[in-house]
């Protein structure tokens, strides 16, 4: 207990005595955590949209012309055998035309001139809840494609793939930039602590004479590293919130078409602070690592 007080007091003294250095370390770790946080916010929101869209995925299975009624019934059974299929609805020629005319009333004459079978009959399939993913819909499409009597399948392949690539690219850039900045902040925290360590050589010698163990001596510097990292992450969260409120929130609302733009969940915020603390801890460990002859 008394040792904890000692650790925090020493850390406080180190912060005060090396304000400039500590500030630089703090700002770098804040920037790196801010970057990670930004990508995280964007990713979380895009993920949200993708999930919403995945829930709404509908697959249209168009049928060949001139199938007999019992052939259609068999086809329906075959399709229903797939576990991915949640609900299946048959859309006859007539239903298709009615639905079309409902949307484009002015083209009534054109449709009438093409006759009863102007639009193909189809099955409208919605996915079973457990398969409402891009993977689910693609695997179902593969299985149905080859069935005799099916002429074409549509489920918005293009944008689903584009979204997939987009999120993956974003994650990649985010990880690279985040990792680079994280390494930088580890290095800067390590250097800050190393410098304090050398400037405290006199005190550390006294501690050894008083019988302090190496662990005792290192404690305050570990606390310092963790505090730098966690404080940096805290600052980054404040910055993130400001950026979010003044920018992402406004722009995002338009882009996301009705899906509410969300900030990070409390768990994610906690995780970011935890990440910051870990960065600081690693930095401190690195600066304290050399064996006792060499470390101070």
């Amino acid at each position, binding site marked *: 207990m*008394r040792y904890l007080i000692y650790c925090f007091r020493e850390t406080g003294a180190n912060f005060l005595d090396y304000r400039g250095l500590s500030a630089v370390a703090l700002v770098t770790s804040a920037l790196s955590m801010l970057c990670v946080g930004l990508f995280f916010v964007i990713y979380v929101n895009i993920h949200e949209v993708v999930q919403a869209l995945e829930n709404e995925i509908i697959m249209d299975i168009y049928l060949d012309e001139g199938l007999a009624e019992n052939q259609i019934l068999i086809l329906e059974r075959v399709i229903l055998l797939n576990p991915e299929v949640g609900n299946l609805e048959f859309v006859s020629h007539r239903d298709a035309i009615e639905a079309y005319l409902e949307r484009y009333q002015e083209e009534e004459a054109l449709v009438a001139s093409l006759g009863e079978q102007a639009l193909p009959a189809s099955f409208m399939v919605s996915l079973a809840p457990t398969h409402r993913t891009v993977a689910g819909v693609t695997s179902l499409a593969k299985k149905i494609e080859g069935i005799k009597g099916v002429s074409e399948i549509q489920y918005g392949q293009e944008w689903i793939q584009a979204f997939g690539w987009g999120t993956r690219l974003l994650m990649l850039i985010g990880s690279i930039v985040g990792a680079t900045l994280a390494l930088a902040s580890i290095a800067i925290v390590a250097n800050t602590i190393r410098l304090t360590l050398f400037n405290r050589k006199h*005190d550390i010698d*006294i501690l050894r*004479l*008083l*019988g*302090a*163990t190496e662990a*005792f001596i290192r404690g305050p510097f570990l606390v310092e590293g963790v505090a730098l990292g966690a404080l940096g992450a805290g600052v980054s969260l404040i910055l993130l919130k400001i950026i979010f409120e003044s920018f992402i929130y406004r722009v995002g609302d338009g882009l996301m078409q009705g899906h509410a733009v969300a900030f990070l969940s409390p768990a994610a915020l906690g995780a970011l602070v935890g990440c910051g603390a870990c960065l600081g801890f690693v930095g401190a460990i690195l600066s304290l690592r050399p064996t006792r002859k060499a470390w101070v």
Partner: protein
Amino acid sequence: MIKLFHVSKHYGTKSVLNDVTLLIEKGDMCCIVGPNGAGKSTLLKLMFCQEQSDRGQIMINNQNVTHMSQSAMPAVRQRMGFIFEDFRLMLRKTVLQNIVLALTIAGTPHKQGRQNVDRVLEALRLEHKKHDAASDLSAGEQQRVCIARAVVSDPLVLLADEPTGSLDSTATAEVFDLLRGMSARGTTVVLATQNQDVADRFPQHRVTLNQGRMTEQRNTCGI
């Protein structure tokens, strides 16, 4: 209890201690006297594992500390108090923080620690200075803080290197009272001084050191 068997120490080619053999019983109070450069501080540093001897063996409380590993040193030092010739205070810290540091390192329970701190602050008349930074104290006051830090954790062995070098006569008398009291309660005290007047206060066990050799030993403790 402290035992030294034929201990020698060189710095480079210079022989600083030469074949010193010494036995100090538990609760004994031993005064090492000798002129400047006689090797008194070196002798205490050997007992404190601050320096390593070239030859001979050193036992402290039945533990051989002659060639001790770095990792075993903290435990040994936590049971010793050392009054440094040059005080070795943390100048940025207050008097109280300097003293409490010894308790924190030794892991003394909080309540007992408080009592000890109050006791030594009173004994060394530092109460009114306890929140001052150590750097703002006079030499005599700094020396008293150093003494307070050495005795606050009730060490089994107290090594005092010129503990009254900067003190006035009243403070000197008080410090010797304090040391005698500790010795009476079982602490083994070793005191080094170049001052003959100080040495004359310890007629029971006195060792004279000259150019690294023991020239005289007077021990009437057991009698």
